[in-house]
């Protein structure tokens, strides 16, 4: 990329916030996942929407690829600049602009991290919370919303994209556009009843525009929380376990994990049921209803509640769950694939069995982590393959495991979540042709020069 472009970008954001130094390009060329790294030409860190707009206009004019980046923690290579160009790191856009206590929403910039909003609310609005994904706190809220992430309130309220009230987006041609109630009135409280344009940007991995602001829903923060862990040894029971627990409407969050370590976890499915409340009476009532909902399994001796010692319970009650991030480096070397599939709940048993087969074949260390979405309408089924990045053979094995997991997920009736480029291709191969054409048309309409995160959702 020529010096004029560099200088123009420096003029927009200031010299300190643009770089083409090899050591910085190195870091922006990869994530912790197994995707092949690729250097950007320039990294730029804007502070305002206006700066983003100017950068996009320049990139569009010069037909330079541009890759928006939040925390770069998708682990699926979604922020890797496969075709070079500009990586637009949004972390400086980290202002919390408004907390509406009555309508319960937070208006934030795209670079605000989960941890920053969580601590801001804890300090200033202790009665409010947002849904926290089990990712490192540095991951950005915008990024997580855009990949249809999920978190501790997703069982009750759905994917994080469903908790989105509105966005400000810079289109690939440079226009700044508001979506949601904020498009009509200066309040960011809902997307309905307008035509819902948010879908033009959700799940597109930054290939249709750059989100610069967003409003997400906040929720009342209960005073008490507790966790129950229901243990089974037969995956065939899980759909029914989830059905019965969600039927009570008493659980705030329902997860499931299965892994070979520690020893006591191997061979079991642990369904983790979080409950919250404002008094011990309420908690006790909820505990009893949930326990009763699973009585049949207990009576048949096929499932039961684990006794959790306090120190372990503290770990289960953390948000985000630190144990997951610790697991990420279990192989050492910093490699970690944590991707998965969104499945209908009845497909759990087969998906589980196939994942274990893949694990047996490729990965000595593995973990399955699932989250029930929206009172049991679907499930995020994630498989984690940690690997040693310093060992190329291990990286190759992780890639094979990933590919096989993706194929198996589709075979089992699931849809790959935050799919890497390879995963997107696999899905597009079996996508309804009319849907594919619609994707293509939208992409062409919004991004005529194909500058936005090229490689992603590229319909040939």
């Amino acid at each position, binding site marked *: 990329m020529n010096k004029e472009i560099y200088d123009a970008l420096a003029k927009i954001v200031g010299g300190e916030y643009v770089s083409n130094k090899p050591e910085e390009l190195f870091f922006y060329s990869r994530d912790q996942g197994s995707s092949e790294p690729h250097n950007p030409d320039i990294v730029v860190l804007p502070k305002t929407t206006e700066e983003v707009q100017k950068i996009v206009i320049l990139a569009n004019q010069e037909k330079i690829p541009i890759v928006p980046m939040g925390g770069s923690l998708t682990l699926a290579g979604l922020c890797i600049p496969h075709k070079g160009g500009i990586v637009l790191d949004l972390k400086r856009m980290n202002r919390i602009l408004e907390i509406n206590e009555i309508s319960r929403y937070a208006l934030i910039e795209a670079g605000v991290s989960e941890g920053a909003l969580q601590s801001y609310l804890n300090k200033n609005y202790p009665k409010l919370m947002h849904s926290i994904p089990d990712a490192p706190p540095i991951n950005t809220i915008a990024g997580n919303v855009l990949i249809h992430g999920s978190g501790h309130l997703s069982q009750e309220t759905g994917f994080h994209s469903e908790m989105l009230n509105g966005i400000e987006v810079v289109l690939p041609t440079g226009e700044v556009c508001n979506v949601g109630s904020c498009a009509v009135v200066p309040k960011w409280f809902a997307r309905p009843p307008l035509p819902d344009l948010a879908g033009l940007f959700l799940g597109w991995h930054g290939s249709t525009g750059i989100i610069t602001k967003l409003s997400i829903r906040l929720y009342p923060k209960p005073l008490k929380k507790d966790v129950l862990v229901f*243990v*089974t*040894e037969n995956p065939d029971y899980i759909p029914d376990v989830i059905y019965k627990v969600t039927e009570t409407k008493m659980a705030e969050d329902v997860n499931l994990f299965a892994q070979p370590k520690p*020893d*006591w976890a*191997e*061979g*079991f499915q642990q369904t983790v049921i979080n409950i919250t409340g404002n008094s*011990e009476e309420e908690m*006790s009532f909820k505990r*009893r209803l949930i*326990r*009763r909902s699973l*009585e049949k*399994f*207990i*009576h048949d*001796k*096929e*499932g*039961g*509640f*684990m*006794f959790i*010692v*306090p*120190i372990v319970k503290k770990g289960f009650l953390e948000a985000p769950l630190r144990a997951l991030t610790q697991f990420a480096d279990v192989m050492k070397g910093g490699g970690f694939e944590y991707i998965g599939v969104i499945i209908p709940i009845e497909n759990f048993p087969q998906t589980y069995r196939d994942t274990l087969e893949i694990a047996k074949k490729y990965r000595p260390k593995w973990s399955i982590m699932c989250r029930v979405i929206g009172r049991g309408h679907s499930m995020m089924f994630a498989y984690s393959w940690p690997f040693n990045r310093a060992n190329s053979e291990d990286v190759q094995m992780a890639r094979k495991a990933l590919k096989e997991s993706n194929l198996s997920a589709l075979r089992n009736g699931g849809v790959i979540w935050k799919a890497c480029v390879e995963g997107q291709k696999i899905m597009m191969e079996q996508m309804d042709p009319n849907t594919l054409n619609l994707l293509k048309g939208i992409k062409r309409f919004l991004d005529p020069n194909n500058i936005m995160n090229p490689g992603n959702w590229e319909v040939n």
Partner: protein
Amino acid sequence: MNKLRFDETICASCKSYDCLVKCRYLNLDLEKAKDEKRKLIKGEDSIVLTDCVTCYSCEEYCPYGNHPFYQIVELQEAKGIYPAPKPITNQQIKMVSPTGKSAYEEMRDPVISLCVFPEAKKSLRGNLFNDPSSFLGKDYFCNLMYLHFGKSSIIKERLPKIIENIWAHKLDKSESKELVCYHDECYATYASWAPAFDFEVPFKPVHFFEYLYNRLKENVKNIKALNTKIAYQRPCSNRLISDQQHWVDDIFELIGAQRVEREFDRENALCCGGPLRMQGRDDLAHDLQRKNIEDMVAAGVEWCVFNCPFCYYTLGGMVKEKKVKPIMMIDLCRLATDDIKGKRSEGYE
């Protein structure tokens, strides 16, 4: 496999059937108890096998020391009538499975087994203790908890190696050949269960409360009477070694703690509810816990004192909700001898 020393003729000639009549969970009158006992002696199916909550109390109620509870567990396992759901039992079996990675470590007398409870180590300090040697871990875990799961076989399988580890790694080269057992369950293993099944124990188990009492006696000049009312949560495994119960009163007397008269204490003590939860008997657990705590509150106690960490894990938070302070016995004693006022047991909540 070692067989239980159980004399059928003693039960057959028993007149009181205390083991079953006194059981507060089965609710059997003398005639029904007699009938069920007859079935048990013959090894037949009985509601005792399915409904036993594994509180261990019948071991205490039997006037002849004929091990009625150990026999129930033997029969449960033989017939595949397990008190807890299979995944919970199997998970528990894995959870404290020996690692085989332990090795010899130099010890000084007294040698204290802390079972598998690391929290206990934090309390072994201050004026009362003179830096005793202690150890813990899966390779030294007595495994008696599997009585709650109808799995004597696990204890039988693991105990010889556990005893061998304790002897070889901790006691063989020590002076006294005594093992101070922090947890009632460990003491009960070596003093009650192992002899009942003819397992040889080469060391002398000493109940932690005996050791604690002696330490208090030696430090009597440092004791500041607590002048407080307490409730004691008697652990299930103490039912296997009821001759050791007096230490509780002896200790309370030394430190000026008043063990209040209440309904659910001593022989009438209630299970903490933890094993019942694991067995899936939630309503019963809930009911027992409620009654037990209401009884403590009605007696006007300041503290609920535990010796079993598992009981503390189960009830600690619940008593605290009712403004009763949970504390381990060792820490209550340290309140009387050390300047740790207000400091609670660490790591149990």
